[in-house]
């Protein structure tokens, strides 16, 4: 089945704004920057079966930057794991859509995340299990740039290279911003591509990490890489698609209210 990624990413951005608006809180900025990577995975590359979320042979996705849960939920809903109408229950007491993803609450979520820095290690474990079982599935994992300040990320980077995990394909959502400011204000990442290369990874850098075509080409290249893991560095725009949120640090972790909520919705509908 061929999906229209432009239509999908637009719908996911609408879903994100609607669900965060309904919750009255959450993380719109990092959700919007990650939409295109997540959409390209779930609607073009991943070998999955929404009717059988725990299918043993499926490809896996670990949202290491778990605060972008609204983007993951949007993809899962649009892909048919659960009804789209439920997205607006995000963060509500009776909902199965927790503020950060929990694999036991939400069909389609492959790993619980929320404490930054742990997702790549979990992805490595899934890939090691796949290798032991002679399975050919891929494990995709999305990290934030601020998240890359966590030491465990680099422990896991070493492990993936040591074990030659060529079925681990990572993405870095390089939007330049975190909570208290830009990466450079809070803790500079330095030459991040050189760092991943130095850790033994194949590195692909995408000047426009919000372009599904670029992302898709990179994934195909990564799958052809043998003997080492691949990091796809995506230069993205935080808040992508909502004019006043784009590249604005203050929209990391709050929902727009009142008139701003309506403007956000109008922006994504106009995409």
């Amino acid at each position, binding site marked *: 089945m061929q999906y229209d990624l432009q239509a999908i990413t637009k719908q996911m951005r609408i879903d994100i704004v609607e669900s965060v608006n309904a919750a009255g809180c959450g993380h719109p900025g990092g959700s919007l920057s990650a939409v295109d990577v997540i959409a390209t995975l779930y609607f073009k590359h991943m070998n999955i079966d929404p009717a059988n979320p725990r299918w*043993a042979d499926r490809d896996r996705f670990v949202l290491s930057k778990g605060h972008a849960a609204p983007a993951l939920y949007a993809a899962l809903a649009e892909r048919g794991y659960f009804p789209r109408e439920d997205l607006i229950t995000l963060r509500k007491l009776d909902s199965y859509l927790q503020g950060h993803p929990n*694999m*036991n609450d939400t069909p389609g979520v492959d790993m*619980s995340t929320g*404490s930054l820095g*742990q997702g790549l290690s*979990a992805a490595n474990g899934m890939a090691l299990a796949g290798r*032991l*079982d002679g399975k050919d599935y891929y494990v995709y994992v999305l990290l934030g740039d601020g998240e890359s300040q966590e030491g*465990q990320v680099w422990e896991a980077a070493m492990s993936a290279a040591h074990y030659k995990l060529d079925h681990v394909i990572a993405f870095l959502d390089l939007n330049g911003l975190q909570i208290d400011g830009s990466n450079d204000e809070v803790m500079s990442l330095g030459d991040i591509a050189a760092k991943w290369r130095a850790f033994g990874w194949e590195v692909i850098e995408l000047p426009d990490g919000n372009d599904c075509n670029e992302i898709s080409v990179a994934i195909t290249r990564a799958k052809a890489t043998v003997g080492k893991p691949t990091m796809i560095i995506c230069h993205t725009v935080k808040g992508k698609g909502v004019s006043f949120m784009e590249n604005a640090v203050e929209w990391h972790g709050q929902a727009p209210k009142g008139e701003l909520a309506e403007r956000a919705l109008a922006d994504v509908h106009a995409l």
Partner: protein
Amino acid sequence: MNSATREAFGAALVELGAMNPDVVSLDADLAGATKSAGFKKAFPERFFDMGIAEADMVSTAAGLASAGKIPFASSFSVFIVDRALDQVRNSVCYPRLNVKLVGSHAGPSCGEDGGTHQAMEDIAVMRSLPEMCVVVPADDVEARAAVLAAAEYDGPMYLRVARLASPTVYNADSYSFDLLHGDIICDGDDLTIVACGMMVGRALEAADLLADQGIRATVVNMHTIKPIDAELLEECARKTGHIITVEEASVVGGLGSAVCEVLAERYPVPVRRIGVPDVFGRSGEGSQMLDYYRLNKEHIVEVAHEMLGR
């Protein structure tokens, strides 16, 4: 016989590996000390050296478990519990993944390495996490049984094993381990001594001394501290009216605390906790350290006398 529980863990892991192809082992450059090295030798393709990176090891184990493996991740207790606590909490317990954490060199019996290496708080810390099962085997026989039971149990488990060799309490041929129930080893009406780990052996020695003086003690091996066998504790409290707990771990939050929590709500009786006071450890030979903290039969007997007023 009379070997350290870490030795029994290592041997049982090899046994388990032969029985169950889904069992895998990870270690953080301490395989020789935790004894997971036996598994590494027997099943190299299912053993993962993770480097000195406990956080990565624990989350990697979670990923393995999510894909159907039964990972045993081992290191010194202080590193796997304390260094990797966030990973234990969020990668393992929150998603309730089937990861077995094995903490060796726990408690003051760890010995010469001193205060940085002697985990006193591990039982308290692991016990406070939802979904976590906490098991402290009494001897080598029970350690083997607990490792086999761990693979049968679906969910996160912390298994505490010791560096120091200690006397074997159980008969390997007749002992059957029941994960969810404490074990009454000897029966008496005057008081109950509830112990775990290598303190079970010392509790039995104390019970013998007390018997010579006409004081009859029940000795309970509370190998599983969470979920704790509350029924058995209540039964002992009703029967004997006096409880002494003994552990080679901090009295803050450990076995003693767990027992008090149960009895305060179900059947309050006087309880005295014997354990490591609220301090860091120090260097010394393992068995010397146990005496240094008065984790011995003489002290148990003394406390029994105080409690009973005779």
